[in-house]
């Protein structure tokens, strides 16, 4: 169903390391990869999957390396891609960062990992926490290491016998707002991608149950008075019992140890965009371009957006920028053909203004200029746009200890784009 071999390549297409899983393809087919990739790009047929003869290449790019799988059969290609991203995560957790150098410096352990991650093209264990229990940087004496039971158990994400003096759980509810506004100010898309991330420091094999103000749950249990949030789509970490959720919307699970993402959710919103931008750009060809940007915070007064950055593109041949703002500071970033207006703290219900002026050369370039949308970055703590709330987190362990959950809420920007005229 899957990959024949995996390669990690540098940016020139040179093999840093490879592993042949099925032996049905000559390993040197990879020598053509880079050339084919460039050809596809020239023919504007670039895609993460392409066929050459009877071999398919499936690849992703991460930092300065390519991760490539080859296959000769009608492989489950979404699985191959998911697997490659899992590999990235495992390598990142092992070496802090995945890049050319970290692969070169750790080739022995990379080989060991590739051996455990996949067998004959079938993905095996890709949980770096569990892998770290028996594949480590230091050499081993044989007697010491054995396969951790978690490797094959139903609960394959948590080891037995964990012990903490203080049993604690931290929950972060993080909502990213995706916004797309057309150049005439219409909201085309407004969507929240939420995630509940956990840091779990609990002894033993605890059984957890999470309660949310889920609208469907309220409706089925007859609590129609409570205002619930309607989640459009929910995705869970593999530890959550999916059938149980499908049956009665209960989120029950044995958590992995440490940090992980318990669930993600998605919903469309009708609420006003949190930070609204109006722009007026006047371009006088051959002489200057003038910007007038208005930023408005449309959330409640008691909340505050921190580290707000408004990124506005400017023509590539602009120079000598002059700026004036009612709050924050503006910086011209020529290498990105943009200016960044930063506002450290932006309280709700406020409106700030910025004016900018650039000179343009008298000779105009022939090329069409792209006009990237205005992008906004921000963080609003103690606040969720959807109104989602953690009602309870029940923790049951057979030793009967008490553990306290801590909950934090934060809203931030996702893909937040406002097109300009």
């Amino acid at each position, binding site marked *: 169903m899957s990959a024949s071999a995996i390669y990690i390549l540098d940016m020139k297409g040179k*093999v840093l390391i490879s592993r*042949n899983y099925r032996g049905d393809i000559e390993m040197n087919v990879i020598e053509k990869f880079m050339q084919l990739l460039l050809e596809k790009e020239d023919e*504007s047929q670039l895609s993460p999957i392409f*066929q050459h003869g009877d071999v398919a290449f499936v690849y992703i790019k991460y930092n300065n390396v390519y991760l490539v799988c080859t296959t000769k*059969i009608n492989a*489950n290609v979404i699985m191959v891609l998911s697997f490659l991203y899992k590999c990235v995560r495992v390598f990142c957790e092992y070496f802090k960062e995945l890049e050319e150098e970290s692969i070169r410096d750790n080739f022995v352990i990379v080989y060991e990992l590739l051996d455990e991650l996949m067998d004959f093209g079938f993905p095996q264990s890709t949980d770096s926490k569990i892998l770290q229990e028996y594949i480590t940087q230091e050499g081993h004496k044989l007697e010491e290491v054995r396969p951790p039971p978690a490797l094959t158990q139903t609960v394959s994400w948590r080891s037995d016998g964990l012990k903490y003096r203080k049993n604690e759980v931290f929950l972060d509810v993080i909502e990213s707002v995706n916004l797309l506004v057309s150049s005439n100010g219409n909201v085309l898309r407004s969507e929240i991608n939420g995630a509940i991330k956990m840091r779990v420091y609990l002894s033993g094999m605890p059984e957890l149950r999470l309660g949310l103000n889920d609208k469907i749950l309220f409706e089925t249990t007859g609590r129609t008075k409570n205002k619930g949030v309607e989640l459009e789509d929910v995705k869970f970490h593999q530890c959550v019992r999916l059938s149980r959720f499908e049956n009665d919307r209960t989120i029950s699970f044995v958590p992995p140890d440490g940090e992980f993402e318990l669930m993600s959710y998605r919903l469309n919103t009708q609420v006003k965009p949190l930070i609204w931008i109006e722009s007026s750009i006047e371009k006088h060809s051959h002489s200057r371009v003038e910007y007038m940007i208005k930023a408005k915070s449309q959330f409640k007064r008691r909340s505050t957006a921190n580290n707000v950055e408004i990124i506005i593109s400017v023509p590539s041949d602009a120079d000598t920028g002059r700026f004036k703002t009612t709050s924050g500071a503006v910086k011209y970033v020529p290498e990105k053909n943009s200016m960044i207006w930063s506002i450290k703290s932006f309280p709700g219900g406020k409106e700030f203004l910025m004016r900018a002026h650039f000179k343009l050369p008298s000779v105009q370039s022939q090329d069409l200029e792209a006009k990237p949308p205005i992008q906004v970055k921000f963080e609003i703590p103690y606040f969720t746009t959807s109104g989602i709330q953690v009602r309870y987190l029940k923790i049951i362990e057979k030793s009967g200890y008490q553990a306290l959950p801590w909950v934090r809420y934060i809203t931030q920007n996702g893909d937040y784009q406002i097109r300009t005229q």
Partner: protein
Amino acid sequence: MAAMYEAEAKKGEIYELKAELNSDKRDRKKEAVKKVIASMTVGKDVSQLFPDVVNCMQTDNLELKKLVYLYLMNYAKTQPEMAILAVNTFAKDCNDPNPLIRALAVRTMGCIRVDKITEHLCEPLRKCLKDEDPYVRKTAAVCVAKLYDINQQLVDDQGFLDMLRDLLSDSNPMVVANAVAALSEIAEQSPQTKDDKEAQSVCERITPRLAHANAAVVLSAVKVLMKFLELIDQHSEFVQNLHRKLAPPLVTLLSAEPEIQYVALRNINLIVQKRPDILKNEMKVFFVKYNDPIYVKLEKLDIMIRLTNATNIAQVLAELKEYATEVDVDFVRKSVRAIGRCAIKVEQAAERCVSTLIDLIQTKVNYVVQEAIVVIKDIFRKYPNKYESIIATLCENLDSLDEPEARASMIWIIGEYAERIDNADELLEGFLDGFKDENSQVQLQLLTAIVKLFLKKPTETPQELVTRVLTLVTQETDNPDLRDRGYIYWRLLSTDPKAAKEVVLAEKPLISEETDLLEPTLLDELICHIGTLASVYHKPPNAFVEGRHSLKKNLPLRSGDDDDGAGQDMLSSNHQQQQQQQTVVIGANVGSLIDDFDILGPMPTTQQTITNNMGQAQPRAASAVPNLLDDELSSILAIDSNIGGAQTPQSQIPIMTTATSFPINPAPKSANLLDDLFGDLNLGGGSSGLLYSGSSAFVLPKEIWLSAQKGKGLEVSGTFARRNNQIVMEMDFFNKALQPMSDLALQLNRNSFGLTPAQPLQVTTPLFPNQNVSTQLVLNTNGPMMKMEPLTTLQVAIKNNVDVFYFACTVPIHIYFTQDSETDKMAFVQSWQDIPESNEIKHQLQNVHGLSIDDLQNKLCSNNIHTVTRTIIEQKEMLYQAMKLTNGIVVLAELKITPGNRTIAFSLKTKVPDVAKLVVQAYELILGSN
């Protein structure tokens, strides 16, 4: 010199490593192995060190052991003899107390694809499959799949498949998972579910998986649901609910990494075509983001068009206009094209689309203008006489058009609206000046446009213009299409201008609003491959994969025959298909399609007048809906019985039958009647089972020789028969594509018996979509010969207007048996003795139907196997039979029949041993037939 030094240095390096590998000190050894692996990693050849590295295998250091194993996997193939050295250590490691070592050993052994090692793998593998540790068992399960890949026979013989099946009920989930993976790899067949209830219960169990965080799990769940949905009553609430549940997870996939988004989008494209309901309200999620990679942008655009309808067109159009001003040329082009598609799809919005296109043309961005003109031509096709006011604007841009498609489109527009463009002749004349340098697409279009102009405005058009273009194309070009079209126009114009007008200016068929739709059969197959490469390429697996992994999958068939709703559904979808047939799909090569239709389009209505004018006595030959009964009757009479009917109008083609039928017959009853009447004459085509012709010679049922998939929509099935002592190739041609097919022709490759067509293939074309034609082709055996393996293989090439297709079929040997094989007793005995003993084949035949000896003889005789003599020896009936092949080979046979026993002792002699086995098969087939 330098190379020599380098080689020396390398030698030194290898030598040093060798010394270190053989060091007593453990650490040095380990470091040395690491160095070897490092060299291997950067692609240096360190295979010379094989024995030294293998020596390090016996170590209690796990890391070292892993490295040595890695080395083994890499080099075992190049040093198979040496690899045997490792076998003992492998076997030992499979018994190691540490499960990690046991698993490592069994995993590595399976990766060493050396036959001699494989033999030694069986025992350790058997042990590991029953290991107490699940980690070892899960590794062993995968190893069975590895072994199967190397030596299938071994896996079968050793009973590993049963052991693997046992692991399906293992207590450990990972073991079960790997066992499932291994088994599905070995036999890619899923159990058949036919029942509505069962399908629902599968769906209920799968649905929760849509909430899994892993995109691969989600998409696989989608695949299963899409498949099983087919089995459930389409109007049930269950299906509606499932449709609702499928949308959110599909949308969420678009928040994943771009590469995964891409795969998701390619699959959504299929899902939208199969079940448009699911995502009909999700248009906005496919709006393109500025920072999407180009491959995501293009896919989103495609889906946007599929989802466009009257309610969301305003939004879509605003988006497309935005995209058309971006900088990426391919994306902009596709966006402009999309605007045109919207206009064709949503009539209410056509005017807005046109004005958007005009706005874009005003930008004067060259590629935008050209693309816009190409799509405007389609809009004119769809809404004739509605937007010609914009022609003036279009004409302003004549000079900037440098792409053939844009030029051809512009010329088409001028020709089509010649009567409203005052200076049409000047414009076309302008194009004509550079005629020779134009692309053939433009040339064809220009020829047609000028002829149109002439027919529309005969008085104003300079005669000289027409003469000039006709002279150019008929005398100064090498392009046969162009020349042919030129001649056709010329003759039409000179013989009957009225007919010319009817042909050239005929009303055009509508163009379809849905473009680039996949063929329904292909779509169904791809739905079964959601998430795989096939779903990304939109091609069936056998188009890019060889061997056993390319097994064809199909959506399950609904068994709801008793279900009225389902039946209606089928009917309505058939209606849809029919409607689709009547319209033309705009393909990639629009210009050339139009060309075809300028000529082909009017055929059904004008054909008769034309042929009459030409004085041909074949009025019915090309009519689109032939009289079913007459055709079949006359052909049957003409061939099989040789009655006076041969003097029917079709007598020009006495040997060829053409039975044309449409899938939805307006009078199904009469068709059945025909089947009843003539079914046993093997012309109905629809009846199955073994069939006899009049003389009751045995004919195999028709089998599919060329699938619609391989034949780009053309399906060919057929068989061989011997009729009136002639070899006849009987075929059905079925057009499963959306467009008519024409120009069918057939050729046979050189073959063992020199088979060659006695006449060209005569099928009345065009063959319309969903039309089925049966034909018979008489073959001679005087063609060029070439020995085939097996002898009965025949390679066939079939050509139509789309492509040339090749396939191979088998001609049963008895087809070659000739009538004149009757020999006398003495000659038989003489021949029998002449053939050496070693050529004799003995075999047990089954008298399946318990025929009497007379019946048996008759049956064989009707297949030209003649009994020379019959005697009784030791209370057993002896039949001596002879047959002669078309190429003169004589085969002699002796049948020994014990009364009351259905087993016949059979022996056979021939000078050519190659045919002996085939003749035995022929006996079996004939005796087994009804």
